[in-house]
């Protein structure tokens, strides 16, 4: 009898989107750091 692989499949589905979202989060935090280092505020740009 085959062992169900549901857990593995779910993890396989979720991991790439987690990684991509993590890349997106890093880009955003880096952008905030760059803007903060230039002394730019949210009010100035929004």
């Amino acid at each position, binding site marked *: 009898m085959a062992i169900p692989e549901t857990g593995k499949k779910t993890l396989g589905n979720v991991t790439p*989107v987690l990684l*991509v979202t993590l890349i*997106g*989060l890093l*880009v955003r935090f880096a952008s*905030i750091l760059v803007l*903060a280092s230039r002394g730019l505020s*949210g009010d100035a*740009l*929004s």
Partner: protein
Amino acid sequence: MAQQLAAGGSSSLWWSPGLPLYLLFIHRCSSDSELVSMIAMIPWYAALSFLVYHLANRISGRQAGIVATLLLALSPTFIYHSIFPLTQLPLATLLCAVIVLTLSYSAHPRLSTIAVIGTMIGVAILVRPSSVILLPVVPVLLWRIHSRGAIPFGILIPALILITPWMVHVKRTTGHFVFINYANSRNLFLGNNEWTPFYETWYYGSHLKGDDVPDRFKALDSSIPEHAPHEQDALYRAAALDHIVRRPDLFLLRTVNRVRCYFAFDTYTGTVLIKYARLPKLLGLATIATDALFYVIVMFFALYSSVCFGELGLSSRAIGIVWVISLAYAVPYWFSFSHPTYHFPIIPGLLAVGGGSGWRFFRNPGTEAGLLVSRIRTNKWLAASLAGLVAVQVEWVFHMLSRILGRA
């Protein structure tokens, strides 16, 4: 505005309260620095990323979901809106949530799903009151999928529970009934008066101090704020409606232009980086070009997937739900004033729609390009929609260049 809300008073009632209330909550939990406001936008991006993946995966598979979330992660305009406290990103997330939940309801008709849809619409109305259009549209859409009497109440009740306390607060503060905030009727006026440009209907929304603004318009627009806020609301609305009734031909012309303008590529992020962040002009222009390329690719494949869903093996119901909700959200902008930046909230849904055909194309460009060309030749709807997309972009570039050259 979060600080104005904390201070109280009628000045805080000009803009919609949704995002300021959220920021106020975050500020109360931590500090009221601008850095905190910027970081507070990031959870909206994370939520949107998962929703887009879920939607694209549902419509066209896992790879499409990954491609869609990757584009979302790296697109300059989505990065910009994920770190500055503007309403576009929360609205995009809420709209995507409504689409995902509507799809979920079509597969598993549960009352709890309807209640969550109603809650999402209620929050969307607080973020941008024009989202009120979803309150009749989404129940009709759900009704067409599963005719259940509970649908309208299931959506209306949670939405009303969310917006009523704010309306009561406005009534107590001003003594008058106003739907969410005061700026809405002014937006209608800015896009519908005898001086509103025919194509650039947004122009007076952001260029009121320029030398090219007619003196009579300046005089009228500065006389109305001398009245009490609730009177301003009525005066702006009356002035706009008076012009629409007197010149329905111009209203129709501007409305057709507003629809086209809405679907042009957005130049907002790059322009802001050049104008206010004082970053090198070349970087700003590169941002505009990247955003334009991203947008055209997304729209191209969204149209391709939507017209050729049968040949591509995509779900017509899912694609139909994305389009109906997205276009319904866009309608108020076509009657007030329009700018390409206002299409931001509908892009994640269309990104999910186009993800499947886009992934297929980039994985096997040779074969897919041949298929695409033959479909364009044989399918007049596909040819017309893609030609329309290109024409709208060319028209936008022409208007932008005319304005830049006119200023030089």
